[in-house]
């Protein structure tokens, strides 16, 4: 019987402005992670997060991280008129 856990791997470029907020989620949910690269000049890092597919509310955790990154990206690199370019993510939990 195959007992290996299945993971969904995703890499995110995270600015230091919200790095601690993302790490808080990652560590609180004990998600395996790996720093792939660091861009000192831009103060960003590429973080690979492994989402175990059998963990409950994994969709919500992933959603939580992506909402924070999307919000930051919107405020840092876009203007109010670009709002239609972003997905209409309500931030509500999915079960």
């Amino acid at each position, binding site marked *: 019987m195959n007992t290996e856990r299945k993971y969904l791997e995703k890499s995110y470029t995270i600015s*230091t*402005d*919200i790095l601690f*907020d993302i790490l*808080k*989620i990652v560590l609180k949910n004990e998600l395996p992670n790996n720093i792939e690269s660091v861009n*000192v*000049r*831009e*103060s960003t890092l590429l973080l690979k997060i492994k989402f175990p597919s*059998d963990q*409950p*509310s*994994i*969709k*919500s*955790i992933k959603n*939580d991280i992506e*909402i*924070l990154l999307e*919000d*930051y990206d919107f*405020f*840092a690199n*876009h*203007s*109010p*008129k*670009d709002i239609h370019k972003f997905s209409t993510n309500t*931030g509500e*939990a*999915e*079960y």
Partner: protein
Amino acid sequence: MEKKCAYCDKVLGDYLRTTKKYCNDSCKQMAYYARQNETMGITSTSFTEEEDASSSFAVSSEAMENEADSISSSSFELDVGDKDEEKNVVAPISDTIKRPKYEYHSSAFIDALTNAIQVQFNPSDYFDYCLKNPRLEVSKHCFWVSVRLRCLIENIIRLSRYRTVPVSIFKQLAQATNQLCSSNTFLLVCNSYPYADLLIHLRTSLDELAKTQLTVSMRYPLEFGKKIELMAARHYIGDIAPRLLFSQLVFSDIVEPPKEKKKKKKDKDQAEESD
């Protein structure tokens, strides 16, 4: 070897076929729901013992009897029958499962930025007016200043992330900010332009920075509040001004006599003198 139900672990009777997995249809249905919930992010552990017991799908023999009674009585007394049915009615699965609610996290930085953008100051009306009336002089001046201010703000935010920045870059920025502040275009709109104060404040701070620093390179970390203010400003200015590079922009609008003519004059004078 005794075979057990895959859902409730009851021993399956000998009278059932050998390939049967569940003792009855309700177990089969419950196992299906459990599988569905697992794929959607809920494990079967979220079913508490009490909930399992009260689960409408594990219908006990008593309930079956009550139901039979209610059906028989409902055929004579409709009102009573409805009440009995309400008691024994199968509750939807969503009511019986206690779902672990995930608590979404918030970021102090994004919250402060949202507050600065949505609550504290909103120049959208001014920019919308300029966008709707692009031929007006005020709008043209506003575009001109906004493009340059956006470039300055983006560069300041970018430089604040670097470990070290050469002082010469700060001198260039200070010079550009000075030129922008003293430009005729800015002076024409400075009373109504929403970020006039911000620009003047930038000029003073960059001037001080360029004068006081004696080292070749240095760090320029922005304070939390200042960074929020600049990012909020950039966010709104992004609506009206496209992104252009520092090298592509001229920050002064004061027309100077072309240098080539000056040079030619000098050369002529020198030639005459030598003759």
